[in-house]
């Protein structure tokens, strides 16, 4: 019983034995070490048991010796099964054909895939590959060495820096690494760089063009800082002026800051509401009752269900009602001044860019009047002061 699989593979038969001295047959079997099992007495002088197929042929002399007769009741196991199958020629040839078909089909290339290309089209690459004997429905053994094909492909496609060809089962994968082309610079018109405002130059660096000013020069708005005209009047070349010019610029701010400021604060009282959303309608399902808040703010968060990318038009809304209060805050004069300076500074940075450095700030005047502070502030700022001016025929004369 433990070796059921082996027993199946060896094959066994169920026998019926008739005879007077059946017990002596059993003893003979034991003596010759023939294994039998499932021995049943069917009637007087009739025994049924199982025996291995190869032991079956040793049985005949023992039967003769004990004067018994036997009939085979049933055959079990692989040898009989195979015997039965081998008789069915068409079935066998079908299996063989099927296996052969699978084998032949698996030696074909079923798919050629191109990955990694961005600028090159897959069609172009596939065309070149086909030229080298790499195409769909091609036999694997007819192809050249894949490394050689990869090398040849790299040669034929000049826009690539590397091509790899890999066989993955019945699929050919062509991996392409395109050579990177440097980014094209935007085109500029011939130009001068001029000043955006009155300033004292603190730094000038001309990458291209003719610098017209030096550090510590005072310039007015519209003065040329770096000229795009090179050479004297006879031998002239017009270029795109490029460079960086920084200068000190002055800003004056007149501000009025109220001393009383209103600030909105939350009291911490919250009321939750929930809505069920069906299509375009929302039905309140939680948070009924009147609001006791005199002033409040709503926060809505919407959760819509979807299956993959298809919206289901069902969802819910969580609403939070936050009670708020307006508080009045009194600023001291110092605080008001600080607020004013901060406002002015952020205004300057917003207008001139992040590279700007505020060198000095001076409060010239600060008066308190009718609960307001009127103040005048002067800033000295180091900033980029260039802007471009295209060179036209008219400009060139000057």
């Amino acid at each position, binding site marked *: *019983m433990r070796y059921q699989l082996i027993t199946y593979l060896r094959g066994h038969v169920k026998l019926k034995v008739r005879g007077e001295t059946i017990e002596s047959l*059993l003893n003979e079997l034991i*003596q010759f070490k023939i*294994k039998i099992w499932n021995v049943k*007495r069917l009637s007087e002088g009739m025994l049924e048991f199982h025996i291995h197929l190869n032991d079956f042929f040793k049985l005949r002399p023992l039967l003769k010796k004990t004067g018994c007769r036997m009939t085979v009741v049933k055959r079990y196991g692989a040898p009989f099964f195979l015997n039965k199958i081998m008789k069915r020629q068409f079935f066998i040839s079908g299996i063989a054909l099927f296996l052969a078909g699978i084998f032949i089909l698996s030696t074909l290339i079923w798919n050629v895939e191109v990955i990694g290309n961005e600028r090159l089209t897959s069609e172009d690459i596939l065309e070149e590959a086909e030229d080298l004997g790499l195409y769909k429905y091609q036999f694997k053994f007819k192809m050249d060495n894949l490394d050689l094909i990869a090398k040849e492909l790299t040669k034929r496609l000049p826009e690539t820096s590397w091509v790899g060809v890999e066989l993955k089962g019945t699929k050919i994968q062509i991996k392409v690494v395109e050579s990177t082309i440097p980014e094209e610079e935007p085109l500029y018109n011939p130009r001068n760089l001029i000043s955006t405002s009155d300033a004292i130059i603190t730094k000038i660096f001309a990458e291209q063009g003719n610098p017209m000013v030096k550090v510590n020069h005072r310039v007015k708005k519209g003065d040329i800082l770096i000229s795009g005209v090179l050479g004297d009047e006879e031998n002239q070349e017009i270029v795109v002026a490029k460079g960086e010019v920084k200068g000190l610029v002055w800003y004056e701010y007149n501000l009025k800051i109220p001393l009383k400021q209103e600030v909105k604060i939350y009291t911490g009282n919250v009321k939750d509401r929930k809505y069920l959303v069906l299509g375009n309608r929302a039905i309140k399902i939680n948070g009924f009752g009147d609001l006791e808040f005199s002033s409040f703010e709503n926060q809505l968060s919407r959760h819509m269900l979807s299956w993959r990318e298809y919206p289901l038009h069902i969802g819910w809304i969580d609403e939070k009602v936050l009670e708020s209060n307006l508080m009045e805050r009194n600023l001291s004069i110092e605080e008001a001044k600080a607020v004013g300076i901060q406002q002015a500074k952020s205004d300057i940075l917003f207008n001139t860019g992040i590279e700007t450095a505020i060198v000095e700030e001076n409060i010239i005047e600060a008066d308190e009047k009718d609960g307001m502070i009127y103040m005048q502030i002067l800033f000295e700022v180091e900033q980029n002061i260039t802007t471009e001016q295209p060179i036209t025929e008219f400009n060139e004369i000057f």
Partner: protein
Amino acid sequence: MSRIKKKLRKFTANVLDLPKDVIFDLPRITMIGNMQLYVENHRGVVQFTTDKLTLKLSVGHLEIIGKDLVIRAILSEEVFIEGVVEDVKYIQKDV
């Protein structure tokens, strides 16, 4: 001679605390409920019907009485019986 041998065997079995079946060539009978029965060290089948199985032993016989008795496996020294076992009789001398 045989008597001396027997005594010597008994003595060794006692001294070394060995199982008796090894020393005296006796059958070892294992029963699982009344459904399965192993007999080791038998000497052949004397009689086998659905109700009764008589096994020859080195000394005497073993009678197994029951219903629907089937020999699941039989080897030169082992028998494995299944069925409803009702009675196991040990007959010391020849029947």
